[in-house]
């Protein structure tokens, strides 16, 4: 490599260096763009897909619209929904304690327990899409932390009750 080529290379290298430093210097003077959690929280969550939750009836928000048809359980690709409802007593056994069985049960239109295992959910929305009475929607909670996987099994009926009381 001749001396003139070496000199040229050093010049282009220095130019690159100064241009890069200039851009970094400019960015240094601009306001910070990161969100400092937990001091700040993000606010654009209105359409965020958190785990699914139940929608309450208009006249009584603590009771879900769900009719325990079991369509969402069937549609879910990840098997994360469990819906239990009371099994209607057989003839002659009316006094026996009420048993719970997986939805749907003939003649049973109220769910006894709705549980979603969020650790399995792929947030695909198939359950909400298939629900005939629009009883499921996504919640908007992005801050879910737990040490135990079991804590992601969420009892949606209890959650709905709590939400209705808080309102």
């Amino acid at each position, binding site marked *: 490599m001749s001396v003139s080529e070496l000199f040229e290379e050093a010049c282009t290298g220095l130019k690159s260096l100064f*241009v*890069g430093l200039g851009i970094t210097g400019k960015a240094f003077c601009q306001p910070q763009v990161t969100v400092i959690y937990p001091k700040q929280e993000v606010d654009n969550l209105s*359409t965020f897909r958190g785990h699914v939750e139940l929608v309450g009836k208009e006249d009584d928000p603590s009771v879900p619209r769900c009719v325990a048809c079991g369509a969402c359980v069937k549609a879910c*690709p*990840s098997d994360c929904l469990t819906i239990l409802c009371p099994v209607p007593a057989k003839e002659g056994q009316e006094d026996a304690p009420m048993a719970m069985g997986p939805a749907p049960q003939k003649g049973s239109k109220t769910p006894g327990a709705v549980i979603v295992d969020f650790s399995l959910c*792929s947030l695909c*929305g198939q359950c909400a899409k298939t629900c005939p009475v629009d009883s499921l929607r996504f919640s908007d909670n992005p801050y879910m932390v737990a040490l135990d996987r079991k804590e992601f099994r969420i009892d949606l009926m209890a959650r709905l009750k709590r939400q209705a009381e808080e309102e």
Partner: protein
Amino acid sequence: MQAFDTAQLPRDPSSVRFEPGPTEDKLILSMGPQHPSTHGVLRILLELDGEYIVRAEPVLGYIHRMHEWMAEQKTYFQFMPNMGRVDYLHAMAWNWAYAGAVERLAGIEVPERGEHIRVAVTELNRISSHLLWWGAYLLDLGAFTPIMYAFDDREILLDILQAVTGSRLTYSYFTFGGVYNDVPGDFAPRCLAFTKHLRSRLPMYRDLVTDNVILRGRCEGIGEMDVDLARRYGATGPVIRGSGAPVDTRRAEPYSVYGKFDFRIPAYSQGDAMARYMVRMDELETSCDIIDQAVSELPDGPCSAKAPKTLKPPKGEACYAVEGARGKILVHVRSDGGPKPYRVKLRAPGFSNLSVFCELARGTLLADAVSILGSLDLVIPEIDR
């Protein structure tokens, strides 16, 4: 019980092929499966003579998820969320390829508005994929700052996509017949503001990185691939466009409303890592052009056609190809008339693009292998489905 004789086991074929040669001074190096520059669980067996690569062989199989098999076990609707996991960086394109194939099979028409939204979100997603590639590639080459700038811009984009789809990475937004939900009212102005912003940032990207001597030194003349080699291996996307062939599914086999839009397919003829880099940088502008056209003429009407709740397409088969950020994505679905697909075949662009690596890496320095690998823009779950 008879003791198990391990000598009976077949030997790992890769270890057989990588036995030291007669000179015995070759070094076998395993790059990956957790090497930062293999971007996931890809293992590359390298045979080195000093710093030079004599042979390179990618070894797959660390993340096999059997997506195609899963497709046969689930209904058409249930398989949809898997598409976002095949290529998590351009989930929309995979969503589209699968939705498109099933729509073709079942004869479902997508309304005009749905098509426009599909185009806009897919192009937004392509930009986010390219931006992440840009940052990660430079990170591989030893530059840390660019990924921060890329993430800064990508953040605006992810906010838009989150408002539309509800998630930030593994989108499951397409349904058969259109899209899951309509876009919010401020979608078009936000997109236009973003493309304007990105265009204003591109000169900065150029000054900071593209014109930088270090990048040019690491990429120019490295991993040269002529167009025949690319064709022979079935390379698509920016990889073949970097070898001078302007082939793009959006133009070659126009699908959806792409035929209506006016855009340029960037191609560079050098065939080296720098050319592939330049193609992707130019594609950012192309995507901005398409988004501008798609959202400024967003038609009114429904965003989705009515599809039956349990889909049972008639017997037959259908293919649908879309242009993903990494190349041509193709989904082939075969139906036997039941509620589950009889067979699904996914054609991932990354697999063909990776195969070229063995040829490109031979004879280069170890450090150049990183430049080459990064310039192919691999997403491992897509290759190793």
